[in-house]
């Protein structure tokens, strides 16, 4: 990491800690902007139009400042702890979930040099960090001193563990095809690839790994606990599951974590299957230009994929708990394993 982000643009020579600070801050800004944009676009407007209503219109033009108003409202609310709750664990549980979300963004590349840390373990790191949020959810459910919260946390635990397996197994097909765990290498493998010798659009893995892509998106829907997999917070059965005792800023943290995780998984899916930030290598666009185009490419793809998640969320009814487990263990995992075998054979044959 000798070449700084700003070096090619401003000619600044930065120390390692300065460069790292800039990378982390830019990463945080990108994360919050994309999350806020996705919430406004989909949760406020997209769903309103699906239900033949306008959605928020008062705050700012077309209600675009609504989210700031909502955040202001949450920040003013009283921070309530229930009498019997384990105060410390209850208090830090949202932070654990949010930290797990933020860590996922560390390795997602948005350009040749626009990545917080280009780790060799790349996608493996993302999946490991995303699995840590379960600890925060279990902490929240237990510390709330509420039967509904505990039930919700247990459901979340079972669901997130069950769907972590198809999520990881779906990624293995891409890793075999690209021959690397590093996300930059996976992006490069797609942009430099060829479809039967034709390099016009590279070789995005959605073409060869369509099964993996589908399994990945279904598993992401469950990992995000969005409908039809929202049993942990099912309002008609568990009031609000593990979030039931949370108000104010701590509830806001869960809200941000939920949508930021959606953006993170969508960005990962675009990187793995849709070519990531890179345009096809045959187009011959320089690295300098891609540093500007790349973030736009990956953001657009990620926001569109978040749209798919929300489209499914607002279209389908909730599954039953046993159907959820059956889908993961009896359908998705065998299918993902078969996908790995076929991909491995194809990799050796071709």
């Amino acid at each position: 990491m000798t070449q700084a982000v700003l070096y090619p643009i401003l000619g600044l020579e930065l120390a390692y800690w300065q460069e790292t600070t800039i990378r982390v801050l830019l990463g945080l800004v990108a994360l919050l902007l994309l999350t806020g944009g996705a919430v406004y676009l989909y949760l406020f407007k997209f769903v309103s139009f699906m239900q033949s209503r306008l959605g928020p219109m008062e705050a700012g033009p077309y209600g675009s400042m609504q989210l700031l108003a909502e955040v202001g409202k949450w920040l003013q609310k009283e921070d309530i702890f229930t009498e019997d709750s384990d105060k410390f664990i209850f208090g830090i549980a949202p932070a654990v979930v949010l930290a797990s979300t933020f860590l996922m963004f560390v390795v997602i590349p948005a350009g040749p040099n626009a990545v917080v840390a280009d780790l060799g373990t790349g996608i493996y790191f993302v999946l490991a960090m995303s699995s840590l949020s379960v600890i925060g959810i279990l902490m929240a459910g237990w510390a709330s001193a509420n039967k509904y919260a505990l039930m919700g946390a247990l459901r979340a635990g079972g669901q997130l563990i069950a769907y972590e397996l198809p999520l990881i197994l779906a990624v293995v097909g891409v890793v075999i095809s690209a021959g690397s765990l590093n996300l930059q290498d996976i992006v490069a493998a797609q942009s430099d690839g060829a479809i039967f010798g034709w390099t016009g659009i590279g070789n995005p893995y959605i073409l060869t790994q369509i099964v993996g892509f589908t399994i990945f998106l279904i598993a992401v829907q469950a990992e995000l606990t969005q409908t039809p997999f929202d049993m942990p917070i099912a309002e008609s059965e568990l009031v609000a599951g593990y979030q039931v005792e949370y108000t104010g800023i701590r509830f806001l943290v869960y809200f941000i974590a939920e949508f930021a995780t959606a953006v993170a998984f969508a960005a990962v899916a675009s990187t793995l299957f849709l070519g990531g930030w890179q345009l096809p290598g045959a187009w011959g666009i320089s690295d300098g230009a891609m540093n500007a185009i790349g973030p736009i490419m990956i953001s657009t793809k990620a926001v569109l994929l978040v749209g798919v998640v929300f489209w499914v969320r607002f279209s389908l009814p909730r599954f039953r708990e046993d159907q959820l487990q059956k889908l993961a263990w009896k359908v998705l995992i065998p299918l993902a394993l078969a996908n790995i075998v076929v991909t491995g054979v194809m990799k050796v044959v071709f």
Partner: protein
Amino acid sequence: MNSAALIIAEVVPLVTPETTFDVPANVVFAVQAVVMIFAALRVVTTKNVVHAALWLVVVLGGVGLNYILLQAEFVAVTQFLVYLGAVIVLFLFGVMLTRAPLGVSDDLDNNQKKIGIGVGVALLAVLSYALIESFGRSELTFAAYEGVAGPNTNGRTQAVSDAIFGQYLIPFEMLSLLLLAALIGAIVLARRD
């Protein structure tokens, strides 16, 4: 010696280079070691079973940090995924599914406490002796992989996979067989018919 330790020994060769004293790494190790020892003591002394599991999160996360300090990135991420993301979650899940009272429980100790302390101290003595005997004053080289790594850390991950699927293929397959046997055993025990 378990497989993770073997891989570490493989990936981070203990040679004697010229400049190895890495101040930040040593400071981080000192802080993390103190935190881990404190958390490990709290695991066995705390009066709440869920708190014990959560203190164990700190201990196992510290082990992962230790692997990062040894530049074994892949092993560290595996530690986070397997121990924090799965083992601890199953601990918490199991404890909460059966009995997890809030507040203080007085019946967490049993009469094997003294034997446990004895075994723990004996294990500490044996391991300390073995480590000091075999490594003595040799120092870790923190710069060993700079040349291989380039801008990212792919080199280290490749070194791990080469070790697992080359030199240590048979132990690796034996471990997977062991896990399979445990899996089948669990199913046999759980089935009533």
